[in-house]
């Protein structure tokens, strides 16, 4: 598999989906838009055999919510596909249909960041307690726990 497949060729191909750069050895980072994620993943899957989803990471960088899909395959190259979403009412098409393990990661992100993955058949509350308030997402940067509520809160961390 590794013969003609080089980092450069993959990076070159990925240019059509957005900004593509070679981050460090064996890593490619592609920045794209939400509507192209599905196509990008399909393309890397079909053309270069990226059949394994390592994880989906969500980051709140205070301006936007960022989703990063990490994929790898038998050639040991990791491609990270990053997209940015708006902070209010973030929505994202699911990739559950092409990569079944994504279901778990998507629901986890939904719980902690409030990103809705449209098309995921099972978007129930999973990680937090049953009586956790519906519109509070603890891993967002601006989330501050209410010290009076039942769920305690992060007590003053010394800096």
């Amino acid at each position: 598999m590794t013969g003609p497949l080089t980092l450069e060729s993959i990076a070159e191909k990925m240019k059509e989906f957005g900004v593509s750069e070679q981050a460090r050895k064996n890593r490619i980072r592609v920045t794209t838009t939400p509507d192209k994620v599905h196509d990008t993943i399909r393309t890397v899957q079909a053309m270069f055999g990226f059949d394994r989803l390592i994880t989906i990471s969500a980051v709140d960088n205070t301006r936007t919510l960022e989703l990063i899909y990490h994929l790898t395959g038998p050639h040991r190259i990791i491609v990270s596909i990053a997209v940015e979403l708006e902070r209010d009412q973030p929505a994202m098409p699911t990739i559950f249909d092409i990569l079944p393990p994504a279901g778990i990661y998507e629901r986890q992100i939904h719980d902690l960041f409030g990103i809705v993955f449209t098309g995921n058949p099972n978007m129930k509350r999973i990680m937090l307690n049953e009586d956790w308030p519906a519109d509070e997402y603890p891993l967002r940067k601006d989330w501050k726990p209410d010290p009076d509520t039942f769920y305690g809160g992060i007590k003053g961390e010394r800096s």
Partner: protein
Amino acid sequence: MPEVVVSIGPHHPALKEPVNFKIIADGEKIVRLELDLSYNHRGVEKAAEQRDFIRVLPLLERVCGICSHSHSTAFAQGIEEIMQIEIPPRARYIRTIIAELERMHSHLLWLGVAAHLIGFNTLFMWTWRDREAVQDTVEEMSGNRVHYNMNEIGGVRCDLTPAQVNAALARLPNLEERVNKYVDMVNYEETMLLRFRGVGRLSKEEALRYGTVGPTARASGIDYDTRKDDPYLAYADAPWNVVTDTNGDVYGRTRVRVWEIQESLRIVRYCLENLPEGAIRVPAPKNAPKGEILSRYEAPRGELAHFIRTNGTDRVERVDIRTPTLANWTSVAMCLVNQNLADIPVIVAAIDPCLSCTSRITLVENQTKKAGVISFDELIRRYRSRNPEEV
């Protein structure tokens, strides 16, 4: 026979960790199930954002008690790569030794627990007896049996003295002999064969499709091992092989694990004998530059991935921990359908679930093939009203 709902967990003798299975069973056969794994959610990721690099390592170590070294090493090597510092070779070797000792103790532990789950307490006792040798070694080296706290950004906390190295080397021959015995036992012991063969089978295609990692994947014939694919620490130097098996069932996973103990012993022996001289740490800056990294590490259960993003301060902006157990859960849900009620603990244990790692997770629901007589919620409600005592 009507379908019954069996709710196993979160407090159940087979499960040392809280997890809940709602199993809809037809007699002894499982029709479908629902897993709820989030009893361990603590919010470690949020806390990690608020502590500096010194204090975050003990926190990440306590994400999980069995693979504690994995988490802190994955994090430390990610931060070191962002800071662009190279740790000294001696520190690399010491980290490798601890990592492989941890893998050995984890696999021995798993073998014992798997034996316990099929009621084979003798093997349980024996493996845990022999595991004590590993634990003693680790305790001598690091000062704690479980949470070693060996890592620091830029190296390791304490050095190995020649006496410790010799004591560890002296324990290895006995351990090797015992592990060879376990290889025999796993291959020829009748009750284990009866209970493990053909249970929870995953073909190579399914294992790939459901994204399994670690021994679960390797038992299905996928040679996916981060230590070889993306060598870190001292794995490029040491002589060892990736172990695979083609069975794909619990039996295969057991065999892969016992063989991996043998490989780990080889790595530990190599590292102890070729321990380089020199410093054990380099000074690390207080703040890390801006950057992001996906740090991969082969934990005992499979590939562990830490996605770390830093923002130029002394803490991370985000650390996203993808644990091997999480990657394997989808396959468990698939394995369990149409199996026996009695096999649930074995199948679930076969991926060596580490739920506290998976602290933050999930529920997989299988699409049912068979329509029940009454609705699922109704079943649950009826069941609950009948079983107020149920935990």
